[in-house]
């Protein structure tokens, strides 16, 4: 049985922070930009207390969403094209 592809994620290891995860997952990217990317993919970790921290049981996405979550609301026009 082959599983369909899902958005990739990792479970943090002891001692991990945004920098160590960025180095591990996005080694080609410059550090600041890699961390920014990671944060943009993990806004859920900021919408709680304390914002931006994570614990050992959290899910950390290592890429953006694969598929649009559909909404009943019409999508607004995107003047910047993405």
């Amino acid at each position: 049985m082959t599983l369909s592809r899902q958005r990739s994620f990792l479970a943090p290891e002891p001692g991990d922070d945004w920098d160590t995860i960025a180095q591990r997952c996005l080694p080609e990217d410059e550090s600041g930009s890699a961390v920014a990317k990671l944060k943009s993919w993990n806004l859920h970790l900021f919408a709680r207390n304390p914002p931006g921290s994570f614990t050992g049981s959290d899910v950390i996405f290592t890429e953006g969403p694969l598929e649009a979550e559909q909404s009943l609301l019409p999508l607004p026009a995107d003047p910047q094209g993405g």
Partner: protein
Amino acid sequence: MLDILIRNGRIIDGSGTPAFMGDIGIQDGRLQQVGGHITAEARREIDARGQVVAPGFIDPHTHFDAQLMWDAEARPALEHGVTTVVHGNCSLSLAPLKSEHRPRLVGMFQQIEEMPDAAFNGAFEWQWESFGDFVKALRGQIALNVAPLAGHSPLRLWVMGEDAAQRAATADEIAQMQDLLRECLEAGAVGLSTSYVDVDENLAPVPSRFAHFDELDALSAVLGEYGRMLQVVPEFFSTDITLARVDQLAELSLRHGIPTTFSPLFDSALSPGNVTRIMDRVAEQFARGARVWPQVQTRPIDISFSLEQASLFFMAQPMWYMIQRLPRAELLEKLQDPATRKALIDAAEPGGMTLAFAHLLIRDSRDASLIGRTLGDLAKERGTTPATLLIDLSVEEDLNIHFLSASMGHEDPARVGPLLANDLVHVGASDAGAHIQSFATYGDTGYLFSTFVRDGGHLSLEQAVRKITGDTAQIWGLRDRGLLRTGMAADVTIFDPENIARGEELPVNDMPENGMRYVRSASGVDTVIVNGELAWSAEGGYTASRAGVIASA
């Protein structure tokens, strides 16, 4: 001589097979005969003509842990036909727990269950530290069966002390937790619960959230030795995160041969693809042999609020939202200022359209006659408008009146019905005994029958019964329950299929020291039998029976 003879019932045995007419004989706590015509005499006869005779309902997600220490019936669960509850969910159980950690755990329980402090301090005597002693304290004292989970958070507290809420466990600490979990399972725990979302009274993550995956993996290995359940609470309303959790659970299920369940899974118009995507993944994982049961509640989700605290409910009414953010005294003054009132009312009811607030229910008020009424009805009666009434009542009651916007999520039977009927969905997630000051978590079983069997026809009566009896027992490995079969435990619920439903949500003050909670009464339930003893009947109410047992896997 039988103890109880139920005559002329429409027997639905919990397996999903078609109903059949017949009698049921009960002796020594067991089903002595199911079906046919019984001629033996019995100490008590119950005429079930016109009623369904079903296995007692099993609620797999409750927080009755503390309540059962002073309320043996877990009221009002029993009168809704529930004869077995799983408690210890969401990483929280009252054992194993060292005495010095009690205040710490009580804080977590209070945050989640909204129970007054008196519910833990004074309402009962803590007679245990170990899980075995906790189970002993329950034995002979409860009117319904309890299938207890061991909570991951107290497990960590026991082994790590305050570090439990600060860091990863060492290999040695994980080994100690494994041994402790083994003790719990030997003493009757039906599994382990953990949480990815819950917080304590200081809004800090509960200890289980500090566990890394290797810790949960090690504990799941112990569950695998016994084939017991892992229950988790995933993050709400995020499809991708829930999908990740499904994959993690599937990995643990396959690796250790254990059943797992996550609760809750909601449907929401905010994310219509949520349920489809998650159920697709669940199906893929089941096809691989993993057992990852999503728990889906039957009832819709409501939003409650008062004008005292700014609620996002008013986001669609910016002027109302802004005024709510004023300091209390200023807000009261503005609500009485004619110009502000007019502006608010005009904004909510442009051109005299009164739909915005007409549906709002009054949840609690110092005038009991208002509770349960809609602003629309009351406004008509009083010759005013709903928005005007919302302001007037709030001012009259010094902002201490609460309103409810019902069915704001998980509310569409056309979407929720098929989901509940899905064979891979575990009907549960009632959360009974939690959030007691926010909403009533009782009566989901009645709602299943009234909304999804009678009104919607999404499930047959037999399917609905199976979902909350036979299926639940099978998923949790409760081998002795969930079916009406000769020799099995005599947990029986007799109900009128045309009338079973949940009652209106009402505030009551029946917690220790007059604490408040919301409850719903039952209708259509006639008789509830636990382990062969009459526990509740519509005619006589609760009995003194304490026939509940620890319903171990």
